[in-house]
């Protein structure tokens, strides 16, 4: 890459399952299907003669622009998924994500209040799960999506055990 990443040096990132791309694709397809059909509503109304205002070109341009944007984001999805990583260090868990807007998060084990595992309808057939850590801060937002179920379970146990060993108050 041309530019330098913001991660601390010398960390072996564990990547999430490539199958997570499918989950993201499903979300992308559904979201954009709804958005495009809503945005095309004026066009349909104009063509059927119910509305007179938006000229046809505008009615076409708006959903087309949206679609273009969506295609751009579609191209980014595989790279975004590849950019998600996590690393267990001795005292804390690191989570990174993002290509344009990067974020590297450090959650000390002693600060974890609880660990959640969620499985969505698309994730289930793929054998994936989403792990979420909660600290006393609502803004922490530490989420690792697209983990294989077995890895998720291992990580949960591991994190709980480490959290207990290092538990501190608030």
């Amino acid at each position, binding site marked *: 890459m041309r*530019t*330098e990443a*913001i991660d*601390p*040096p010398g960390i072996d990132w564990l990547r999430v399952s490539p199958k997570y791309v499918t989950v993201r694709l499903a979300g992308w397809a559904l979201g954009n299907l709804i958005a495009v059909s809503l945005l095309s509503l004026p066009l349909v109304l104009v063509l059927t003669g119910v509305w007179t205002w938006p000229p046809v070109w505008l009615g076409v341009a708006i959903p087309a622009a949206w679609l273009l944007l969506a295609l751009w984001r579609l191209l980014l999805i595989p790279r975004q998924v590849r950019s998600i990583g996590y690393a267990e260090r001795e*005292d*804390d868990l690191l989570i990174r994500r993002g290509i*344009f*807007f*990067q*974020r*590297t*998060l*450090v*959650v*000390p084990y*002693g*600060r974890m209040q609880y660990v959640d595992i969620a499985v969505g309808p698309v994730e289930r057939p793929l054998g994936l799960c989403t792990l979420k850590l909660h*600290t*006393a*801060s*609502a*803004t*922490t937002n*530490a989420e690792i999506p697209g983990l294989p179920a077995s890895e998720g379970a291992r990580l949960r146990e591991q994190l709980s055990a480490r959290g207990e060993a*290092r538990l*501190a*108050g*608030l």
Partner: protein
Amino acid sequence: MALTPEGAGRAGADTAGNEGNVDAGWLRVHPASPFVRGWVALAALLFFFGRDSFERLLQGDPVFDERLAGRAPWLLLGGGTLLLLTVLGYVLSWYFTRYQVAGGYVRVNTGFLFKQQRQARLDRVQAIDVIQPLLARIFGLAELRFEVADAGESAVRLAYLRADEARQLRATILARASGAADGTPSPEPGQRETAAEEAPEQVVLTVPPPRLVGSLLLSEQSVAIVAGGIASVLLSAVTENRNFAVFLIPAAIGLVASYWSSFNKGYNFTAAVSPDGIRLRYGLLDTQAQTVPPGRIQALKVSQPPLWRMFGWYRVQVNVAGYGLAASAGEGSARTTLLPVGSLADVLEILSLVLPDPGTQDPLGVFTAGITGLADAAGTPSSGDGQDTDGGFVTSPRRARFLAPLGWRRNGFTATETALLLRSGRWWRSFVVVPHQRTQSMALQQGPLARRFRVADLVLHTTAGPVAPRLIQAGLDEGRALLDAQSARARAARKRQKSEHWMEPAAKPAAPPADDPQEGPHHG
């Protein structure tokens, strides 16, 4: 341990055996409390049924409308029943509200249809407030609110007690929570009853009313109002439309109300220090007394709106785990305000209360630099602390001056041995203090523009509240180093953290030096 009602009963029984019946039984709140709390409902009911008849009486008409005369008894009966039911409900709710402070827990039982039993561990207290709304004050009553760390979602509330009783109970709870009262802690839960004297306190600062008024007049809100007023006058002059005045009336009412509530909340603000922590007292009609035990403050922010600079005034706000987000109207923001308006000296005083051990040789210099300082135009020397006149603050690198032409000399951080200090804002100055052992998690963030300038933001996550610590546009290398160093510092600080009982006899504070040296070099 005593999580079940049986357990609670047993603890009570134990105490009864030891101490007599002082705290064996459960106590009830003051009988007048439902009426003080629900007076609005009663007043509305009386108004609804009474107004018509009263008006008729005044006019010399028969009490009831002739057309309704036949139905009058029914109406009367209906109203009476409703009134009776309400009062009965109040009496029942009073009867079934009971509380107990024993065995390291405070417990409150409420409700008769839907019973609720709430208990909280005393040593988990985050803050304890004594609140007196106007009506309660007239009756000499007070509400006791016991906050635990759950982002303000719930608190253990005792409404209402007699004011002196509430203060007594607060002293009891604090003495118990601090560990000051229990020479022999858990085995004898009844012990504290006798020893609960209010901890002596010493007034540190007060806010004189003229300064409060001045601060309100010069607040951001006032500036917005003046701007809005001018805009609407201009607009009405241009369009020759007088209707604007109509919209101004409700706006004015709202503004007066908002200023009034700020004034009412901030009036007679007094901060005092006692072994139990920081005591804040304020209020004109509704008074409130807060006690925040030591070490309960998660993050602190000193800020200054531009107009306050004329007088050198500052505001201090804090995050306390129990208070939660200040989103809930004026009350919340008053509770999270440690100092509504004060001079630099007042701010430093407050800082010394919150951080009794600043962890630096020159706290005055560092804090002053944090509040008002500015790096030289050449930028901070990149490494190796030479002679710095800027309190050791590391600011954004000079290359970031195109991103933040005003702020780059101001946005910066420094770390003492006990806290991370962040400052930002050239006009809207702000200075944030996060004690190391209070850091929850951290994130380094960078957008595409920031990447071009090789800078990154470091966000510290803390409990919900008005303070959102964020280091703006630190150099990439400094940011990365800080992320590592800060995790290490936070870890070390957590390890040496004392127990929740802040007054327990000397929990060997001599330990820290052992794991300090390794942190020195990380200083950024």
